[in-house]
């Protein structure tokens, strides 16, 4: 069975027909070409596929495309607005918070949700929050540093 979905994708209204069994991540990557959202495990464990649905971070490999009908979906491609890096992206760059980069989009989307709820997280709070995001390269140290640095930077800008 095909379902018709209409939703807001990075601020623009879009619609598509998809099989009922299509996962959100596949719709984003295959239909809309937004390949910044990665599939690491496809078993809801690794967080490489994290996007925001109605402002909350979710694993897009564990949602059906059909479930976002009427929702607002934001992906890593929508984060940086007009070409300027988002403070989280800038901080990941500066703090060498990635090696292969595969986990990075999910890490950043997850961290963005954290900073919305808790603008000044402690180191422990960042580590706790990133429970669902796995990185096989960095050992997490620089990721945690980058998230806290971005929190500082965003605080200074008053956002």
């Amino acid at each position, binding site marked *: *069975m095909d*379902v018709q979905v209409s939703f807001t994708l990075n601020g623009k209204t879009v619609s598509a027909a998809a*099989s*009922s*069994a299509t*996962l959100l991540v596949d719709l984003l990557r295959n239909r809309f070409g937004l390949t910044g959202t990665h599939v690491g495990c*496809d*078993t*809801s*464990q690794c*967080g490489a596929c*994290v996007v925001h649905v109605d402002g*909350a*971070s*979710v*694993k897009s490999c*564990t*949602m*059906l495309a*059909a*479930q976002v*009908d009427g929702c607002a979906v934001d992906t890593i491609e929508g984060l940086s607005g007009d070409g300027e890096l988002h403070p989280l992206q800038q901080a990941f760059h500066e703090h060498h918070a990635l090696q292969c980069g595969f986990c990075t989009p999910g890490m950043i989307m*997850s961290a963005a*949700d*954290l900073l919305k709820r808790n603008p000044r997280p402690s180191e422990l709070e960042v580590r706790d*929050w990133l*429970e*669902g*995001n796995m990185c096989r390269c960095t050992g997490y140290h620089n990721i945690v540093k980058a998230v806290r640095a971005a929190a500082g930077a965003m605080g200074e800008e008053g956002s």
Partner: protein
Amino acid sequence: MREFNYYRAGSVRDAAKRLAAGGNAMLLAGGMTLLPALKMRFNQPSELIDLAGINELKGIKLSRKGAHIGAATTHVEVAGNVELRAAVPVLSQVAESIGDPQVRNRGTLGGSVANNDPAADYPAAALGLGATIITNKRKISADNFFVGMFETALNAGEVVTEVLFPLPQRAGYAKFPNPATRYALVGVCVAQFKSGVRVAVTGAGSSVHRLEDFEEALERDFSPGALEGIPVSAANLNDDMHASAEYRAQLVGVMARRAVAMALD
């Protein structure tokens, strides 16, 4: 994943009607258990009935009877509710101990109790607090609801609408998480009421269950020390690559004492 008919129910009645209509329809709540199961083809439903649009299934309300939590209320909503945290802090602690933030953003109370995973957290809270599981058809006490591994008293066509948690005088939940999945290797919920003490353990056996020896000891003396020396048999406990039955038996005592200490804190 095989294709199915996707249907967004507008009300509990509507969902129940579709569920009863025959075929092999299943309810979809947060999807955090069901969608991974569909990928593995453990289930192949003809239809998924999405509960996400049903407002009557959402929300948290406190009354004289206790905390009423709608079945489709997410773990993050339970963890973040300020009035609930003040009235029954143990429920917020249970909810925030589940999985990771993305799982908590989607997963729901109703999905968790209906699934009755032997290592899930909410079943321990529901049994420990002596909750009532309310469906579109009847009210079921937690003692009768959690029947066995992934098995509940729910009949075909039944929809969980709400869980009512009585308010304890004090309660605690201590969980030793599996470091990979965050499910409970062993989790113990201890709750003291005027009428007595209830102790429920998850993760240790094939299903959540109560520990009568612990309850009696705590009724005499509600302190961690009261549990010292009470033997826990490893005979019917889970034994797998994550932990041996003996290790789990040991953890049951440790987690129960920690839960009591949390309740007293």
